[in-house]
C-alpha cells in the first residue's frame, strides 16, 4: 500500500468515485449521450455546488467502459477530436437498479468535535456556554444563507437546501440540549 494512503481515505474516495460512476450510468439509462452532454446533465441535476470536471467524466467513462457497464454507441467525426456516444449495457442497468435499492449507511455521528470542545472547556474552567453560543451563531448564519437560496431557487434547490437545513437543525437541537445539561456535564467532567 502507498505510504499515507490510509484505508479511510481509500474507502471514502472509492465511494465518491463509485457514486459518480453510478450516477452517470443512471443518466445514461435515459438514452445514449456524449461525455459533454453527460457532464451538462450531471451539473444541472446534481452538481449544485460541485460541478464535474471534464477529466472526471472521461476517466469515469473509460472505467465504466473497461468494466463492461457502458459501450460506445457511435463515433462522430468532427473538426476537433472524435466524439463518442456512450450507451448503458445490461450489466450497467443491473448495477444502477441494485444501487438504488441498497440503503445508504445511516451516519451514526458518534465522533463530535463540538462535544470534545465542550468537555475541554469545562475541564479547563472556560465557558462551555460560550463555545455553544458561538457555534449556534455560525450554524444559524449558514441556515440563513441556505434559506435565502431556497427562497429564490427552483424545486431542486429547495430540496437540496432543505436536506442541509434539517441536518443543521439537528445540530442546533443538540446544542440546546447540551446547553441545558451543562451543569450536569460539568459535575461529571470534574468528578
Amino acid at each position: 500500500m502507498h505510504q499515507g494512503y490510509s484505508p479511510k481515505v481509500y474507502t471514502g474516495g472509492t465511494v465518491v468515485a463509485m457514486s459518480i460512476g453510478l450516477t452517470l450510468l443512471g443518466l445514461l439509462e435515459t438514452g445514449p449521450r456524449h461525455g459533454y452532454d453527460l457532464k451538462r446533465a450531471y451539473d444541472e441535476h446534481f452538481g449544485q455546488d460541485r460541478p464535474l470536471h471534464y477529466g472526471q467524466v472521461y476517466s469515469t467513462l473509460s472505467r465504466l467502459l473497461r468494466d463492461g457497464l457502458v459501450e460506445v454507441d457511435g463515433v462522430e467525426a468532427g473538426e476537433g477530436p472524435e466524439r463518442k456516444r456512450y450507451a448503458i449495457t445490461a450489466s450497467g442497468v443491473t448495477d444502477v437498479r441494485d444501487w438504488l435499492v441498497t440503503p445508504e449507511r445511516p451516519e451514526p455521528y458518534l465522533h463530535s468535535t463540538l462535544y470534545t470542545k465542550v468537555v475541554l472547556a469545562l475541564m479547563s474552567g472556560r465557558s462551555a456556554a460560550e463555545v455553544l453560543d458561538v457555534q449556534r451563531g455560525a450554524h444559524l448564519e449558514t441556515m440563513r444563507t441556505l434559506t435565502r437560496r431556497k427562497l429564490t431557487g427552483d424545486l431542486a434547490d429547495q430540496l437540496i437546501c432543505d436536506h442541509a437545513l434539517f441536518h443543521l437543525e439537528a445540530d442546533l437541537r443538540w446544542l440546546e440540549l447540551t446547553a441545558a445539561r451543562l451543569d450536569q456535564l460539568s459535575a461529571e467532567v470534574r468528578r
Partner: protein
Amino acid sequence: MSGPLLEAMDLYKSFGPTPALDGAGMSLWPGEVVAVMGPSGSGKSTLLHCLAGILRPDSGTVSYNGTELSALSDVARSELRRTEFGFVFQFGQLVPELTSLENVALPLRLGGMRRREAEQAATEWLERLEVADVAGKRPGETSGGQGQRVAVARALVTRPKVVFADEPTGALDSLNGERVMRLLVAAAKDTTAAVVLVTHEARVAAYSDREVVVRDGKSTQVELIP
C-alpha cells in the same frame, strides 16, 4: 431614524415566586426580522408580551419610537397595539363566528373604516397570503395552514410597524410552516414592518436577520451594526 424602533432594557418580570425575566433586553430596528430563541419556559414569550405592551414588567423599560410604554395609559397602549402592532400567535386566534374575510377586515373596522373599503383591503391581503379561496369560510372550516395565513393577513392588514409572531408555525407541519414563514417575511419586507419572531425552531429562525437568545430569563443578542 437614529435609534431603534423598539427597545427593552433590563426587564424583570415574575409570576408569583417564579421569575420569568431576569434582566432581559433587546432592540428592534425598523424593517428587521429578529428571532427570539430559547428553550421552553426560558421567558421568550414573556419578553414578547412586554415588548408589545401586553404585560407590564415589574421593572425595566420598554420604549417604542422613543416613548416609554409604562408612561402610557391602558387605553393609549391598546390604541398603540391596534394601530402600530400586528400579532400572530401559535393558534391563529381568529374569531370563530366570522369568515376569513371578516376576520381580516376586523382590525380595520375597529379603526372606523367602512365595511366596503375594509373588505376590499382584506381581500387583497387574503390574495397576497394565497388564501383568497377561503374568504367565505369560518376558521373551523379551514386547515391549520390556511388559518395561520389568514392570521398573518389580519396582522398585516393595518400596515403595522411591528409584527409580533409567537411560534407562528408551532402547530403546522414542515411544508405549511415554510409557506407561512415565506409569506410572512415577504409581506413584512414589502411593507417595511419589523418582525419579532418567537420560535424554538432553528429552521424558522433562519428566516430572520439576526437572533436574540433567551435562557433563564436573560437574553443575549447579536448586535446589529446600523
